[in-house]
């Protein structure tokens, strides 16, 4: 009698324990047989093939990605296909570098104000408590460029506070490493972290031009712990040549794709001893200097050649459908100054690796005047549909706007199967 009553109770406890153990998703840092750092996720080696963003998750998986990075904890609650983002990720087998925002001084936060510090510490503690047992969580992304994206990073009080925040995270959660992300692997920043922020487990670096060398640069500054390249892609708008009137010249679509591939490969090979992987930027679309500079997708959802490049880098194969390839985008208007109301022709020569029929879309926009730093939100500049006079396959006639100023002509190419390419050039209108 006693035994028969106890048996189902014992079984129930065993099942509960099994379910609880499976839900935690322990992630640890270890060294492999070569002495290289590796993540162990539920005991198995795990290399991050990641993307920054919260969209196009199924496609990410399809092309070989396995992780996303978010910046603020609230993003985990974003609704995706009727589910929370974090649950959708778990469903797809995508891990999450769960970003917890750490305030920036440039936004008004005062790192000597105890009230603000306490509020931030409480928020960090609450965030970790809420999500620490979710199986999709891979690592905590404690802060993004909070040292100031453009400064020299000589900010001991920020590093010291991060050390406190990391201690809070670790007190709440022993199962996930703490990563902090900085802008570039500048020596002063790395040295500052080494001196004031010993609680960090992983250094994350956002680096664009030359991003493949960021891990090497961190090592040269003395970094000996694990590393993740947390944002990379094409050269940044601050890193490229400019027109005579100061507009940054956006790299071509082929150059962008090559940059993504080259950075991924270089970083993986050159820093195999400390690299845990990377997150390309941005797995979605964003207005930052232009509507196409950093996004790996169009606003209308089609993937751009950078996605194909990452697929190739991750899997050594091209995706089933490849994006069109822009060979040349030329015009006498390109990087030139013209009077108002002038008719000009622009030509975009392109091919499609799959032989798909291509369609062009042309747009003239004003040069953005809402340029921020650190990736802060920017508004879209106005477009001028009346500037498009006529369009044929691969060719457009435009009439320069009447209002003097700086503009861009965008050429977007779609293959009708979810692939696209986009380029633009700058021009200026001056009354004569």
């Amino acid at each position, binding site marked *: 009698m006693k035994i028969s009553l106890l048996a189902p109770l014992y079984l129930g406890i065993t099942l509960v324990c099994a379910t609880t153990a499976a839900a935690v998703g322990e992630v640890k840092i270890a060294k492999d047989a070569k002495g290289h750092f590796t993540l162990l996720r539920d005991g198995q080696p795990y290399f991050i093939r990641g993307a920054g963003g919260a969209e196009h998750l199924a496609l990410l998986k399809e092309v070989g990605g396995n992780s996303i990075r978010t910046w603020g904890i609230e993003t985990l609650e974003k609704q995706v296909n009727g589910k929370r983002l974090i649950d959708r990720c778990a469903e797809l087998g995508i891990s999450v570098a769960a970003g917890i925002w750490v305030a920036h001084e440039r936004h008004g936060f005062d790192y000597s104000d105890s009230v603000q510090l306490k509020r931030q510490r409480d928020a960090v503690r609450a965030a970790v408590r809420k999500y620490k047992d979710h199986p999709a969580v891979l690592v905590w992304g404690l802060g993004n460029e909070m040292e100031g994206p453009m400064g*020299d990073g000589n900010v001991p009080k920020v590093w010291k506070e991060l050390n406190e925040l990391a201690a809070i995270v670790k007190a709440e959660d022993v199962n996930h490493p703490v990563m902090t992300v900085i802008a570039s692997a*500048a*020596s002063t920043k790395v040295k500052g972290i080494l001196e004031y922020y010993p609680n960090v487990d992983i250094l994350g670096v956002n680096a664009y031009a*030359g*991003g*493949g*060398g960021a891990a*090497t*640069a961190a090592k*040269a500054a003395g970094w000996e712990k694990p590393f993740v390249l947390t944002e990379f892609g094409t050269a940044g708008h601050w890193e490229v*040549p400019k027109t005579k009137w100061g507009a940054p010249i956006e790299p071509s679509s*082929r*150059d962008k*794709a*090559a*940059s993504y*591939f*080259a*950075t991924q*490969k*270089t970083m993986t090979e*050159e820093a195999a001893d400390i690299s845990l992987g990377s997150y390309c930027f941005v797995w979605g679309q964003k207005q930052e200097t232009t509507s196409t500079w950093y996004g790996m997708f169009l606003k209308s959802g089609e993937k751009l050649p950078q996605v194909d*490049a990452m697929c*190739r880098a991750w899997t050594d194969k091209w995706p089933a459908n490849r994006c069109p390839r822009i060979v040349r985008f030329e015009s006498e208007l390109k990087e030139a100054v013209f009077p108002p109301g002038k008719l000009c022709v622009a030509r975009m020569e392109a091919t499609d690796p799959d032989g798909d029929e291509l369609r062009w879309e042309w747009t003239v926009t004003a040069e953005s005047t809402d340029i921020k730093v650190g990736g802060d939100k920017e508004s879209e500049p106005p477009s001028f549909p009346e500037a498009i006079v006529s369009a044929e396959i691969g060719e457009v006639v435009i009439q320069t706007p009447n209002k003097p100023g700086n503009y861009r002509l965008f050429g977007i190419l779609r293959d009708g199967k979810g692939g696209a390419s986009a380029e633009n050039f700058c021009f200026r209108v001056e009354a004569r």
Partner: protein
Amino acid sequence: MKHTIILTFIAALLACLPAHGQQLELGDGTSATITGKAWEALNAKNYANAVAYAKKCVEMYEKQAVEMQKELKDPVTSEREEVAKKWALNDVGTCLFITGQALEKQEKPAEALAAYKQLVEKVSFAQTWDPKGWFWKPADAAKERIKALGFDTLK
């Protein structure tokens, strides 16, 4: 005799000119000055001049650069003054990078690739000063460019 002297003078003068016939102003002829002129030409989109200046610097200082590379096991990681002591190494490495960049702009990928490979193979410890306040390694950038140029030809 007079003709011989004149001819010799003309030959010497011609020898100072680059193969494509452009006249280079070498200033004080130091590697730093020539490298500066190469950068200026690259930034001004005068790619032919950029290549010319950069190649001149390599021609004049490569031997010393390679000697400096051999003295090191790793790139110099101490203060700016210490890095600057490897002036030939730094300037030749930088000029090979400029050469590659200019050749890419001239749509000569095979020649650009050769310049980048020479940089990586012979003077990989070279460092270039960024006016924003740090050194970067042209060999690291070259490795990426080698991969990027290779990407464009992947089937």
